[in-house]
């Protein structure tokens, strides 16, 4: 038990240092011309954001469809199926759009980044960078965390709309609602805060997934088994932290803001 607590505190300490160094690299160091290279950030944004778009859209489309099916199944009993749009819209904007998008990102890109940096660490590539006088934080970590933080809200917005399209397809085909009935009903129940809270959450989720993946990759020591462990730990920790932070942020938006 004591060892587990020690390990946890050690991880927390290393993670905080890595996050602090990356934050400094993306803020203060930019003015000293030592920030992350724009080409590296764009390359990561493409890999993390653009290349993940297909899988995110596929998943959230079916999530939207399922939500519409589940809610309409109950609503038709009370003749309130016209409110399906409102339920799907609110659920996607407030909660599931950002959540599903970043969980998929964690599984797809977080794992890849933990494995990539972990392998580089094992192969002494990270050490080689350091010996060449190139900061691994600036070269490897900061561009990835920044790309995650920028692309997670972009994907969350796309995921919101694709999820709603999933619900719309069900509403039109099964519930025989028109496009305008669905959209009007959805918009009538929404306020700007619903949209903004989802985006704010996705920024935090993106930051968490990116930094956790980099942390576990950067901490890898040993051989192939250590890379495997780092990848697994990255995905598991990312998902847990997304859910935990989601609960905390939802409480803030519901009860405080």
């Amino acid at each position: 038990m004591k060892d587990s607590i020690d390990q946890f505190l050690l991880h927390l300490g290393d993670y905080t240092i890595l996050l602090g160094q990356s934050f400094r690299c993306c803020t203060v160091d930019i003015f000293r011309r030592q920030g992350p290279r724009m080409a590296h950030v764009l390359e990561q944004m493409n890999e993390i954001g653009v290349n993940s778009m297909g899988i995110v859209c596929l998943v959230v489309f079916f999530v939207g469809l399922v939500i519409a099916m589940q809610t309409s199944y109950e609503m038709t009993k009370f003749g309130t199926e016209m409110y399906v749009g409102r339920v799907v819209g609110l659920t996607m904007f407030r909660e599931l759009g950002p959540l599903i998008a970043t969980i998929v990102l964690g599984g797809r890109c977080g794992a890849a980044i933990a494995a990539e940096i972990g392998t580089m660490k094992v192969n002494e590539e990270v050490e080689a960078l350091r010996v060449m006088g190139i900061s691994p934080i600036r070269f490897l970590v900061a561009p990835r965390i920044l790309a995650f933080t920028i692309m997670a809200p972009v994907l969350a917005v796309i995921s919101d709309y694709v999820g709603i399209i999933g619900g719309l397809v069900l509403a039109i085909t099964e519930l025989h609602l028109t496009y305008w009935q669905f959209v009007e009903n959805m918009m009538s129940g929404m306020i700007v805060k619903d949209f903004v809270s989802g985006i704010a959450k996705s920024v935090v989720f993106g930051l968490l997934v990116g930094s956790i993946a980099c942390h576990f990759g950067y901490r890898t020591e040993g051989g192939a088994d250590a890379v495997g462990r780092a990848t697994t730990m990255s995905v598991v920790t990312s998902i847990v932290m997304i859910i935990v932070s989601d609960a905390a942020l939802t409480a803030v938006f519901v009860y405080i803001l």
Partner: protein
Amino acid sequence: MSTTAISNSNLPVHIEVKNLVRAFDGRRVLDNISLKVHKGETMVILGGSGCGKSTLLRHLIGSLKPDAGEIWLLGKEITRMQDQEFAEIRKKFGMLFQGGALLNSMSVGENVALPLEEHTNLSPEIIDIMVKMKTGMVGLTGFEHLMPSQISGGMKKRVALARAIAMDPEIIFFDEPTAGLDPVMTAVVDLLINNLCKKLGITAVVVTHDMASVNRIADHIAMIHKGKLVFEGSVPQIHASTDPLVRQFINGEADGPISFQQSGDDYLKSLFAST
């Protein structure tokens, strides 16, 4: 042996290690090591596996901090230096890792160009010319577009050497540069190290246990055993040495003071000490 043995006493000292001590879990891996390497000299650090030579190298490149002692590189003491200050010193030395440590996501040319892109304001055209020059110096002209996974182990080491000399360093550290290579490729890499260091006047520190390489490249040899410096001298001096430990090592004999036997208790002790 290097054909141009250097009379080094008048040349400035590029690397100086003073009474270096490093222990891991109470076990001294480096025990009061002192060394001097003069400008343009090729110093070979010799020793069996696990003797502490790679640990010494990691201290020289600043990856590890000693428990006691000093390390002077190019006239500056590095053990108490801040990261920012040490980053400037790092630009003046190169390192060839045992496996090459090329960035696998980048091509050969991009690997060689990396230090130039990061540390200079040269235009892409000039960097391109310099990359061709450096790859040409290691005999790999035309290989710039290939990925590290597409070239052999010997080529990887040569690319790593091209990357190490990209910034025209004053010092290069070599960690087992010929490990895992066939005899011909070993001779090629040794020749390259000799040519580059002598032509460019680079100070070199080579960690190895390959006696054939030692004979070809060393100006000066330091032999380490169980963390202690047990021999220091030139190639003729090591061959003339009557120390049984040195004789066993250079002749590659199984019997002698360097024992391959270790008791189970000692092994377990060292195993648990390192966890």
